[in-house]
């Protein structure tokens, strides 16, 4: 449904709009065409995400957390795929998996969260751990997990007993889907799960399929 045609002439040269402030603070850029990057309030996005999770978990697939999780992840996948395509349109293909993962960690994460991934680990056998020390979307949720629920939260049936863990876990399916979708657009098939055993940090575990 979202076309990839670009309303603006040149994506490469962008200037973040900061309404209310003077935008000619970079005289060196004066010869570039300044393209406004449209923004909305963060609360718009966050309330939308909360409502998506709520509708799927409490509405359509109440008592079927696995199905709800898959739908939420699918929405994320779609978003990640489209964003990745837009952000790599002008680039040559990535030469290897590590380069693609680094793109996710740096440019991609910056576009989404205005910061990069803080820590990247790999076992050099297809598993990468992307750690965000203060994941934006968790920071605004009151995450109050008991000891039993800590650790990897990707087992929906195990989440069922702990509503807090379930709500948080469900929200995390969305960014997991985004990462999986983004990598899929780069030709990499993988599985992505989230680990919040070390709050407020959130780690995304990417397992590339051989």
């Amino acid at each position, binding site marked *: 449904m979202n076309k990839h045609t670009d309303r603006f002439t040149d994506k490469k040269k962008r200037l973040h709009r900061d*309404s209310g402030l003077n935008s000619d603070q970079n005289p060196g850029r004066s010869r570039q065409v300044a393209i406004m990057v449209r923004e909305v*309030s963060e609360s718009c996005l966050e309330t939308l995400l909360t409502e*998506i999770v709520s509708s799927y978990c409490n509405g359509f697939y109440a008592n079927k957390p696995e199905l709800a999780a898959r739908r939420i992840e699918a929405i994320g996948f779609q978003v990640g795929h489209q964003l990745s395509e837009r952000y790599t349109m002008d680039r040559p293909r990535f030469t290897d998996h590590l380069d693609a993962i680094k793109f996710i960690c740096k440019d991609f994460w910056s*576009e*989404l969260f205005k910061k990069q991934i803080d820590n990247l680990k790999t076992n050099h056998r297809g598993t990468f751990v992307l750690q965000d020390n203060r994941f934006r979307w968790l920071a605004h949720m009151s995450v109050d997990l008991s000891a039993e629920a800590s650790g990897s939260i990707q087992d929906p049936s195990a989440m069922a007993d702990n509503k807090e863990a379930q709500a948080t876990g469900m929200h995390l399916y969305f960014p997991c889907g985004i990462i999986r979708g983004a990598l899929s657009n780069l030709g990499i098939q993988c599985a992505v799960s989230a680990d919040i055993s070390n709050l407020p940090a959130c780690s995304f575990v990417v397992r590339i399929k051989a």
Partner: protein
Amino acid sequence: MAPLAPKSGDAIFASVERVNAELFTLTYGAMVRQLITDLEEVEEVNKQLDQMGYNIGIRLVDEFLAKSNVSRCVDFKETAEVIAKVGFKMFLGVTASVTNWDVEGTTCSIILEDNPLVDFVELPDTCQGLYYCNILSGVIRGSLEMVSMKTEVTWLRDMLRGDDVFELQVKLLKQIPEEYPYKDDE
């Protein structure tokens, strides 16, 4: 403490945390697409979007009231202006305008020419009858209900259907007494 002066939509938008609208636009689009897959009937999707909007609106109004410092609106005309100039601006970063008032001052149109929800969106033929932006009608209805106004919100014009603007008709049905602000119908 002296009351704070109401802030303009621009000032609030500049002061809140903002995100790349693309992420929001694509998330909304992916969600609509998933809803169409899961619910199949376009009319069901319209209803669901309105319901989701309502749920969002009843929460968003708190942030609106907290950040805008608007004092109680004198009448519905002022309410509509505030939604168009402050509400839309502080959340979506765009301003709307208010026109087509009826004689009693209870029905008006909110016109939106620039709408981040529909950036790069085209409706396929299979989605005739879909009100893609129906979440907005729910948001307005939900937030007004939280300030004691029961309204009916309908689309008169829709750019995705070929019109030149988005036009939402907002009709004030009744003012609910303040003792029962939380209705559990709908």
